[in-house]
């Protein structure tokens, strides 16, 4: 039966809970408010505010931003500026620039946000643009700002009919905004073609996907004052690309509207912020990711594929893979040679058809059957590759339409299933069809798509890996592959088949944490990699694999702040490691006798105190030094190369050198660990694996290591094949 007492206790309990809940969380929801000052009838200012920020919009012959106050710090981000017009649209004729604006206001208010639409036009009939600007504030800092313009021209002057009107548009609030001293103000801008830059495009660029995909916000920030303002343009009919910051400040946009034509000039979000352009990047990343479907990135097969960095484009007609004497594919020898020359491959792409296809009516699918051993032979080859943990991809040619087959997807799926392929390379494509995915899933779901072209964001939802053939963009350091930082789940592979020099392409892969494709046999045309490039690739290969736990972080940070103008550093942090690939621009111009050399403190870090750092590219320990109360990384010597790769990790190895005995212990037990003793080949800077000790402690006699000058011994704590700690013993020639 119903128990009254228990019921009452429950009611009281729930009431107390609700009270506590409301008490605790009532402050979380910002109070959003819209105010007209002094009142709606005599309005001079419109104020939109919440608990974080207060925007004051001045209504005086224009709609102007008067102040933007961060309530936490009480800083007005408009300090130093007069009130700045949000938007100006005029006909080019100078006499039109007279008259005053007529305004009407429409507002909307609810719990979560307030919104005001301000409609304006000139009283002067020849300036016929009816402009509506809508401002919306929610719980955060961002103010949404939309601009709609209509040409309301009637017959005027000598014209009897309404006229199409051209107009000049500017955005003074963006273009005239000052943040502190001009010398310390910097600009994040779009160049077009999916490229972005800071101040000057000649230093470096961020390259993204396509120009029609969303752009990074425009950000104006001041380094010294550590604050800025971003303008995140969601959509616009205007061309928001700029040659440089002066072009940005002076640009007059142009638009032509037919009579009655409404133009959605701008959909934008603006916000003041502390810090530099990274805030704008974070906003951009969040925006892109919130509109991106990660369904195909969550599949286990993608997790496996994501750890594949280095691949080989395998033209099956070459002697490296095909032995004409025995009429077979020499897969084991080929993979051995790959290990020797490039540090090994994670996957290979078999290329069997182009340029032969078209000689007769055998299409791409028929041609597989005629390879040595047919599909069974290929299956054997794939099995052998799999036994060495090398994946095998097969190509798909959408252009192969000679037979008029309607079942291309099924045919490719059939071949994929028959030979056990791990992925399909989409030749000449930058997108594909869901039907293709479904056809593959029906028979062989454990494979992925990798496209030759750079997919746009919509296509990248299905195509989970792609080639990066951005040409000069990838070949020049320190350019940043922004796509890699926004959707790090996507597997990018650097390749520039025609390049005659690839060192910067290799650096680019290490710098951005992207994959790299070895391709020396371009359909029969040989473009050999130099000995030096082979070494660079082998070194990159080892580093990116041993540190993939961090390289594959979901939160890579492009261009972290450092102390030097010529040093560019990315960061790939996870909880127990951080990779900092660093590149010095124009090092050859640094005077060796001057203080400009890359020696000493170069970057502040905030990692726990028990972390230490090593440059695994140049094999030198990177000490941490306290400078003015800040923990700073220090180059004790100028790095050997323009590239460095600094790994931060918690100290776990305890390595002591006692005479000729190296005593190794670990401080903290880890599962599945081993200690690897590698030495450094002084000719190549490659690591030579000398000794492996299973477990987490041991003693080694230095004399057993067969050391060569300059006697660098790397003591590495490995968990599986992941680096957990490294100590560099620089034994020095004098000590031996």
């Amino acid at each position, binding site marked *: 039966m119903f128990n009254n007492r228990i019921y009452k206790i429950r009611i009281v309990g729930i009431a107390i809970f609700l009270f506590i809940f409301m008490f605790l969380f009532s402050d979380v929801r910002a109070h959003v408010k819209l105010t007209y000052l002094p009142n709606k009838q005599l309005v001079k200012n419109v104020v939109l505010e919440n608990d974080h920020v207060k925007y004051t919009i001045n209504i005086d012959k224009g709609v102007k931003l008067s102040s933007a106050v961060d309530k936490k710090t009480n800083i007005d981000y408009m300090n130093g500026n007069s009130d700045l017009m949000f938007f100006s649209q005029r006909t080019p004729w100078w006499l039109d620039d007279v008259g005053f604006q007529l305004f009407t206001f429409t507002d909307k208010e609810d719990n979560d946000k307030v919104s005001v639409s301000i409609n304006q036009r000139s009283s002067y009939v020849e300036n016929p643009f009816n402009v509506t600007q809508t401002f919306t504030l929610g719980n955060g800092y961002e103010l949404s700002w939309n601009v709609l313009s209509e040409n309301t021209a009637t017959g005027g002057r000598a014209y009897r009919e309404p006229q199409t009107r051209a107009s000049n548009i500017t955005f003074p609030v963006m273009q005239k905004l000052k943040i502190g001293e001009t010398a310390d103000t910097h600009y994040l801008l779009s160049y077009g073609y999916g490229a972005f830059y800071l101040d000057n495009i000649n230093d470096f660029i961020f390259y993204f996907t396509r120009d029609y995909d969303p752009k990074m916000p425009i950000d104006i920030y001041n380094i010294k004052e550590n604050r800025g303002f971003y303008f995140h343009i969601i959509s616009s009919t205007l061309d928001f690309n700029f040659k440089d910051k002066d072009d940005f400040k002076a640009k007059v946009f142009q638009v032509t509207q037919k009579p009655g034509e409404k133009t959605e000039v701008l959909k934008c979000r603006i916000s003041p912020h502390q810090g530099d352009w990274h805030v704008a990047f974070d906003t951009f990343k969040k925006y892109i990711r919130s509109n991106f479907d990660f369904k195909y990135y969550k599949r286990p097969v993608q997790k496996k594929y994501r750890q594949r960095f280095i691949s080989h484009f395998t033209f099956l007609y070459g*002697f490296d893979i095909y032995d004409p004497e025995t009429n077979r594919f020499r897969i084991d020898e080929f993979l051995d040679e790959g290990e020797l020359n490039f540090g090994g491959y994670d996957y290979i792409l078999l290329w069997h058809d182009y340029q032969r296809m078209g000689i007769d009516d*055998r299409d791409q699918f028929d041609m597989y059957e*005629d390879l040595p051993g047919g599909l069974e032979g290929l299956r054997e080859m794939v099995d052998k590759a799999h036994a060495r943990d090398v994946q095998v991809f097969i190509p798909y040619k959408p252009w*192969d339409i000679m037979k008029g087959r309607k079942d291309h997807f099924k045919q490719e799926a059939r071949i994929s299933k028959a030979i056990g392929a791990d992925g399909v390379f989409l030749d000449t494509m930058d997108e594909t069809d869901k039907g293709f995915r479904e056809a593959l899933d029906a028979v062989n779901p454990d494979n992925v798509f990798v496209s030759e072209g750079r997919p746009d964001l919509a296509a990248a939802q299905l195509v989970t890996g792609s080639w990066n053939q951005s040409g000069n963009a990838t070949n020049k350091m320190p350019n940043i592959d922004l796509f890699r930082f926004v959707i790090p789940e996507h597997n990018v592979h650097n390749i520039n088949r025609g390049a005659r020099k690839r060192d910067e392409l290799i650096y680019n892969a290490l710098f951005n944490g992207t994959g790299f494709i070895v391709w020396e046999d371009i*359909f*029969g045309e040989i473009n050999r990699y130099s000995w030096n490039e082979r070494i660079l690739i082998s070194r990159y290969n080892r580093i990116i694999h041993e540190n993939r736990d961090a390289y594959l972080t979901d939160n890579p940070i492009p261009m972290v702040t450092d102390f030097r103008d010529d040093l560019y550093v990315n960061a790939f942090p996870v909880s127990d490691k951080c990779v900092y690939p660093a590149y010095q621009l124009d090092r050859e111009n640094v005077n060796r006798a001057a203080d400009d050399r890359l020696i000493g403190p170069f970057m502040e870090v905030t990692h726990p105190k028990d972390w230490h750092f090593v440059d695994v590219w140049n094999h030198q320990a990177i000490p941490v030094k306290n400078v003015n109360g800040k923990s700073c990384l220090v180059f004790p010597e100028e790095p050997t190369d323009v590239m460095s790769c600094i790994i931060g990790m918690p100290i776990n190895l305890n390595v002591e050198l006692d005479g000729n005995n190296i005593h190794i212990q670990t401080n903290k037990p880890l599962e599945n660990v081993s200690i690897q003793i590698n030495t450094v080949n002084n000719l190549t800077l490659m690591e030579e694996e000398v000794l492996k000790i299973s477990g987490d402690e041991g003693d080694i006699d230095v004399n057993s290591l067969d050391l060569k000058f300059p006697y660098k011994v790397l003591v590495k704590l490995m968990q599986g094949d992941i680096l957990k700690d490294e100590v560099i013993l620089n034994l020095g020639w004098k000590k031996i």
Partner: protein
Amino acid sequence: MYNLHVKLISIFFCYIIFSTQPTSVKCQPSAKNMVKVPAGKYNFLVDYRWREGLTLDSLLIDDAGVHYRHSKTVTLPSFLIDKTEVTNEQFKQFSDDTGYKPKSLKNFLKHWKNATYPKAKANHPVVWVSIDDANAYAKWAGKRLPTEEEWQKAAQGDDGRDWPWGNIYDQGKANMDSRDTKPVGSYPKGASPYGCLDLTGNVWEWTNSVQTDGYHNFCWIRGGSYYFAKGSRWYMQGGPIANYQRAKFWLMTPALNRSASIGFRCVKDIE
């Protein structure tokens, strides 16, 4: 006495001179269907469009686009060349005589059934033969495959014409864009200056040009074929192929090298 000497010397020289004339060729039965190409110098010029992977020649970029050109003066002795491509019937005779069986059988005479060709195709060029198969036939016939230079001389004569029949392309003079091969000699008006037939079209022809670049084996095939893959510029070029054009053919497994569109004809040195 002097007259006798003169006579003897004259007889001797006559013997020397006449013994090198074609009339003294030891003709095999198959030489009946061959034509003679006279000795001489000519300009061997090949010129073809650029495509990724085609190398070895000089790459040119000019008003005509990106293309390769290779030119040299060659001097060839007189030789005999098959008037037509080797037919299925002829190849069967070879096969029956020798019991020839290539090491790798896949796609060997793929269009034959029960060790013989379809009846209607007796006089069609034999296809689905690798260059090794072609060489085996030629050896049996007491001949060999033509070099590229020989093939081109047979096609263009001394005047460097673009097509065997002249400089004007004429689709009525070769089988260049159809669904299948045709009996050899179907286009008598397409004859070359020396009377060779079907040098353009019908089937590509193997030439004695197998070589290696150190990384692959390849050979040059000539003449084009009936087959013309359409729909993409990335297909190997099909259809009409002029006398001065060549196709680089990367060799791999025989099954892939054999094709429905590649046959051959032979040449014979004049002894």
